[in-house]
């Protein structure tokens, strides 16, 4: 029985596992779905293709190298890679049982393991949100994160002439990554306008003067230098409102936006590209937390107290799952969650850093919050659910004609969210499009958190593999 089980091997999960050990946990198990730790932030090529200059691709790379070394040399910490947690079983007053399949992604005959932890730390991160627009399902339209993942993890450029668009500071490292792998970035377009950016980031700047936030300013200046050196035009208050092409993207339309993100009529300008990378913030990956019974806030993030404890006894969370705040907040939250999970008292420095970077997260949300006017980017034929080809018109018609107010009934009527991704891509969009029509609900409620083969499910039922249960 592991004292502490950590799910997710990104920055938050890594620091949580080590902090749990430092604060007295006898045994810690860290489950990571990829074949190495590091998460999306420290995503890197596999061991066989290691780059001696890897540090130039990342911030805090040496921190990662030492965290990973510490995890791997600690006999009290087992790091299980290729571990896909697909389900948790709730229990009263204690953390749930956690079921994982260990083996190739989407494989078969993977090893099944069930964990019975005294404390569970969920550090499952987030995935990117992309608001739909006509043509966004053409090949050559990528999330900004996909461009970054392919650059950092594979050294592949998603296109030759690329536009980066959306909202949030994450767009800047994406531009830098694309340039490193040889793409020509023809522009970066931020949807928030100058007034919103100034108001969101600028209020009471002295509150940001605490530990470490200076590093963010240095990082920002670095990206702006890269943009200047490569003459990448940067616009604010604008968005990609359409992609054009036959079977792949050939051009995009960029329009000026009003403060509510609705396009200014007649402001559209066509730009030829062979790829466009678009991201409008992130969605916490909350499947396991929801299945465990953790309460969520109004934005779909897991609610935690100042010790990273959720509403479920013995279940803690750290990192983007608690709200989008970036790597520094994730590292600090991991330290706090790991210490508390082990029954210890978190270091005051970690608590201070957590508080400071929460402030940063609040500003991030204020400066880059999605404006409701994005809905007018869609016409009735725009695909919303990419898996099932469900259009905005079909969703609106179904909601109107059936007078359905239930998310589930709307899914069953239109098939939105019933395809392979189970609403990971369209869920928040569907929720937003039907605001005022739909009863509140969350599409992230997926009791089976990742797909598994029916044969594996049958085996699980037959063997009830409970190796770690005393």
């Amino acid at each position, binding site marked *: 029985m592991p004292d502490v089980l950590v799910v997710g091997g990104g920055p938050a999960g890594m620091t949580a596992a080590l902090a749990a050990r430092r604060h007295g946990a006898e045994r810690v198990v860290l489950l990571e779905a990829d074949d190495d730790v590091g998460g999306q932030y420290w995503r890197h090529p596999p061991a*066989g*293709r290691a780059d001696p200059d890897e540090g130039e691709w990342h911030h805090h790379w040496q921190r990662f190298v030492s965290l990973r070394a510490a995890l791997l040399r600690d006999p009290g910490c087992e790091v299980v890679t290729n571990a896909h947690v697909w389900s948790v079983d709730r229990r009263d007053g204690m953390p749930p049982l956690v079921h994982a399949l260990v083996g*190739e992604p989407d494989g078969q005959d993977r090893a099944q393991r069930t964990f019975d932890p005294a404390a569970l730390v969920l550090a499952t991160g987030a995935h990117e949100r992309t608001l739909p627009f006509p043509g966004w399902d053409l090949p050559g339209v990528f999330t900004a994160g996909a461009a970054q*993942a392919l650059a950092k993890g594979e050294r592949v450029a998603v296109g030759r002439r690329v536009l980066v668009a959306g909202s949030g500071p994450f767009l800047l490292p994406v531009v830098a990554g694309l340039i490193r792998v040889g793409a020509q970035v023809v522009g970066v377009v931020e949807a928030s306008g100058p007034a919103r950016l100034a108001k969101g980031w600028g209020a009471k700047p002295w509150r940001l003067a605490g530990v470490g936030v200076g590093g963010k300013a240095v990082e920002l200046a670095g990206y702006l230098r890269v943009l200047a050196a490569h003459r990448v035009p940067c616009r604010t208050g604008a968005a990609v409102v359409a992609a054009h092409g036959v*079977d792949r993207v050939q051009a995009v339309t960029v329009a000026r936006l009003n403060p509510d993100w609705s396009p200014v009529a007649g402001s559209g300008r066509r730009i030829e590209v062979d790829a466009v990378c678009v991201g409008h913030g992130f969605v916490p*990956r909350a499947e396991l937390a929801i299945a465990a019974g953790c309460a969520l806030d109004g934005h779909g993030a897991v609610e935690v107290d100042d010790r990273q404890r959720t509403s479920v006894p013995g279940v803690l969370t750290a990192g983007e799952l608690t709200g989008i705040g970036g790597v520094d907040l994730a590292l600090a939250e991991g330290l706090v969650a790991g210490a508390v999970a082990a029954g210890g008292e978190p270091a005051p420095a970690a608590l201070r850093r957590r508080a400071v970077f929460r402030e940063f997260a609040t500003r991030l949300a204020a400066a880059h919050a999605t404006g409701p006017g994005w809905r007018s980017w869609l016409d009735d034929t725009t695909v919303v659910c990419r898996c099932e080809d469900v259009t905005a018109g079909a969703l609106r018609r179904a909601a109107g004609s059936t007078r359905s107010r239930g998310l589930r009934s709307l899914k069953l009527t239109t098939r939105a969210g019933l*395809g392979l991704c189970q609403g990971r891509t369209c869920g928040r969009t569907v929720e937003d499009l039907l605001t005022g029509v739909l009863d509140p609900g969350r599409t992230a409620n997926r009791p089976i958190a990742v797909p598994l083969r029916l044969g594996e499910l049958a085996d699980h039922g037959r063997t009830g593999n409970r190796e770690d249960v005393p």
Partner: protein
Amino acid sequence: MTDIHVEVDGTPVAGLAGQSIAALLLASGRTSWRRTREGRPRGVFCGIGACFDCVVTVNGLRDVRACLRRAVDGDRVELQEDDRA
């Protein structure tokens, strides 16, 4: 860095050991390798396993996310058409 060869719909395609199948397909010049039931082309979208746009059949096993699966020498990759009939 080792060169590997995989079969894509029966045609040999060269790649690098450890490359994801998605990266291998993109590097070979493909931008899409699947069609939805309405016939809309799909390839990589999210790159981290969330969107399932990039699924392929690998060594006979359907619905494998190409962005997550690492290519292995000799893999047989088949481009997947969604067929709900």
